[in-house]
């Protein structure tokens, strides 16, 4: 295992300490239980946004704490959902009296722990609305599974709902926008290599030199299908086609296109992919009105990418464009 770390069991703590040192102007970090809140929390009268999940997806979620995005993030161990006490403390720390939205990715662990946390928060008279993100079209037969996973759309939901909350919209409105984003966004990912969970010390799955894995999630879990390596153009088709045919996109629709690195794939390749995606969507009559390109929801050092398409309307577009100031995403301010 080749990683720039000290002891595997200290990675999450030390990384969080590093982030605390680096971004003290933007965020405050609490240790034990671990959570991160924006430096000016709680903001009286503003709906607060809390998310969280296993570590290993950086910058998500901690890198998205700040003005115009999350009020708090709870980092779990690598690829392991955080625990209810973290979520409860974070929720209490950011509640400004207007209620708290929990943005939860659809994994059994995240759901169960956030459920427990919401129950505990309600006992302390905090209004909580949980919204589940489940945008991964790689998961078919969602009736016979734990349902679609929450992946790339989470980043977009956190940005857009953060802007809505910043504008002073109500708990119900912010939660509704989050549901709208979830129902308008779809993602599909692929891997060229497996990642290595630090505590495991070896690759989660084995891939041949000439193989890739299509339909992976973000936890180093294998996908639904293994196949021969293919050029970017073909990879883009195999990722975008199930997205486009799942959402009722119509010719002329505007979308936000999000090309994400799983961690080990560099920017030069993401732009090659984006270039192929532009052509593919042109062929479908879809217009990319906004884009996001880079490593935003990663799987440690995994090489690979995911494509997320979000159908835009005027409200979503202006919320996307609104100012944001976090360690990982910053514009307009």
């Amino acid at each position: 295992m080749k990683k720039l770390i000290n002891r595997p069991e200290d990675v999450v703590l030390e990384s969080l300490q590093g982030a605390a040192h680096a971004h003290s102007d933007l965020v405050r970090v609490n240790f034990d239980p671990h959570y991160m809140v924006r430096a000016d929390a709680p903001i009286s009268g503003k709906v607060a946004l809390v998310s969280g999940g296993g570590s290993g997806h950086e910058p998500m979620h901690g890198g998205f704490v700040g003005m115009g995005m999350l009020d708090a993030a709870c980092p779990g161990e690598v690829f392991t959902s955080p625990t209810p006490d973290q979520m409860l403390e974070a929720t209490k720390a950011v509640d400004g009296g207007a209620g708290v939205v929990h943005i939860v990715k659809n994994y059994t662990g995240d759901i169960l722990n956030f459920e427990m946390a919401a129950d505990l928060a309600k006992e302390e008279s905090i209004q909580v609305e949980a919204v589940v993100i489940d945008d991964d079209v790689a998961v078919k037969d969602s009736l016979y599974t734990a349902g679609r996973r929450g992946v790339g759309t989470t980043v977009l939901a956190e940005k857009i709902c953060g802007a809505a909350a910043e504008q002073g919209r109500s708990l119900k409105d912010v939660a509704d926008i989050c549901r709208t984003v979830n129902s308008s966004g779809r993602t599909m990912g692929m891997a060229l290599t497996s990642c290595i969970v630090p505590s495991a010390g070896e690759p989660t799955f084995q891939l041949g030199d000439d193989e890739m894995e299509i339909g992976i999630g973000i936890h180093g879990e294998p996908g639904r299908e293994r196949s021969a390596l293919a050029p970017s153009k073909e990879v883009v088709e195999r990722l975008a086609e199930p997205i486009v045919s799942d959402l009722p996109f119509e010719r002329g629709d505007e979308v936000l296109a999000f090309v994400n690195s799983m961690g080990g794939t560099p920017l030069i390749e993401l732009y090659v992919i984006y270039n192929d995606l532009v052509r593919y969507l042109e062929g479908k009559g879809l217009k990319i009105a906004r884009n996001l390109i880079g490593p935003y929801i990663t799987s440690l050092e995994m090489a690979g990418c995911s494509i997320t398409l979000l159908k835009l309307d005027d409200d979503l577009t202006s919320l996307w464009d609104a100012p944001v100031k976090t360690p990982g995403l910053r514009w307009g301010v």
Partner: protein
Amino acid sequence: MTIAYDDVLRWIRDFAAEISDNKQYLSKLDAAIGDGDHGVNMDRGMQAALGKLDAVPEKDVGAALKAVGMALISKVGGAAGPLYGTLFLQLGSATAGKTELSAQDWSSALESAVKGVQARGKAEPGDKTMIDALIPARDAFREAAEGGVSLGDALERSSVAAKEGMEATVPLVARKGRASYLGERSAGHQDPGATSSHMLLRIAAEVWKDS
């Protein structure tokens, strides 16, 4: 013919040791169909649980089991944290205030523990989860105890049933948890949670065999 308070502590400690010894093995099972952390998760939680045991009010089985449950909830995370946390919390509620457990006590404690896990996780038998080890174990223990066999033998039958349930997860296609994302590809692998649940019941049978 009863399980003493110290026996319960020995069970918790031996289970923690078993998890620790099999950390890599459990995570490897999880890597095949999940995300490769089940052993590490459970070990982190059980080590935290050991740390809590000293603070337990004297000889209250229920309090000890609840302390384990709370430790698991706040230290494990993932799916296993709330599920095993619930399991131990329910064992604790069912045995609150007791200084020792009869066969009947253990049977109803197991009953509510399994019910709690199902209420939380919504898994049915055959979904390829820890439920597939827990339900047969619960049923085997109840039948044996009701049939009048000794506590030690009933625990042994419960352990064997858990083992069979665990092994029976191999051919199953997962319908709950991360493994479900693999669809057909989840078949052919043993469920990690069912494996740790079998350990829990096997250690009980071993530690309590002369009770």
